[in-house]
């Protein structure tokens, strides 16, 4: 099954600690495929998850890849990334596709996607 109920009793505690008890990112615009890029090196005393994000994002890394790499739920990673965005340690490259359903990218954009797929 791809869906399972409730995380083990340990996990909520860990998630609570990692996010300092917050459950929502201040940065509402982070998408699964927003690319995160480090702007600085980790500094001493930084939370270990922040350090890992900064190391991973030396190359652009999507939020969803960070979640997989850190083995944390996407929403938790968004909170951690928001912290680093707030402190200027990372920058975010947002997707250009329209967010709303039923809104299509323009034809020129889709043409580029087609060219990329044909070249695979």
């Amino acid at each position: 099954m791809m869906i399972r109920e409730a995380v083990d009793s340990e996990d909520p505690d860990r998630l609570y600690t990692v996010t300092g008890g917050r459950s929502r990112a201040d940065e509402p615009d982070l998408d699964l495929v927003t690319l995160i890029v480090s702007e600085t090196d980790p500094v001493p005393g930084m939370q270990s998850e922040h350090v890992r994000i900064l190391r991973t994002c030396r190359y652009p890394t999507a939020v969803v890849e960070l979640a997989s790499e850190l083995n944390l739920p996407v929403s938790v990673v968004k909170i951690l990334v928001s912290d680093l965005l707030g402190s200027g340690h990372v920058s975010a490259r947002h997707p250009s596709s329209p967010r709303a359903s039923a809104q299509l990218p323009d034809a020129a954009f889709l043409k580029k996607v087609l060219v990329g797929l044909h070249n695979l």
Partner: protein
Amino acid sequence: MDSTISEAHGRADPAGRTPLRSTATDGLKIVVVGGFGVGKTTMVRSVSEIRPLNTEETMTQAGVGVDHNTAVTDKTTTTVAFDFGRISLNEEMILYLFGAPGQERFWFLWDRLFAGTLGAVVLVDTRRIEDSWYAIDRLEHHGTPFIVARNNFPGSEEHSLGELREALTLSRDVPLVDCDARVRESSKRVLITLVDHLYALSTARETVS
């Protein structure tokens, strides 16, 4: 000796990851939806430039009578796991391909996870057509453009695509194709069919407006 061959994608990373080019700026999403065991992960794997990765999202609902000290454990948490792969389309555009379960509870998270997706591929196993009805209904509800691909398992060719279209009560404007999710060329063809469809929809709209 120079070793520039692996330059494009092969930059080694301590964690064994294959990092994106530093020029990558624009992440795109396509979702492959389908019932359990229909071949979503297989399709993602066959076209992805990385081994498919897995991650999860949690949906938390506050319980009744929450005690502040134990607030977190009093909540009901549902976890949805999904896998994904990646295709670098060019220097800037990176297409992420998600394999998503079509079950009912998953759709609560659709907007949070897949808002802004270009479109979807509904992967159908003809032995379990009913798994696809719900996904098709939900995609229509969300206004997400999609195509349907029949993953060819032994015996699935017994029915024509026309019969399948009828069984799915699929509108004539939704493309329906055959595929073998294990084969890269075939999966690539499915993605091209989807983007061709999106292109046609987009140009039609631009003409109207």
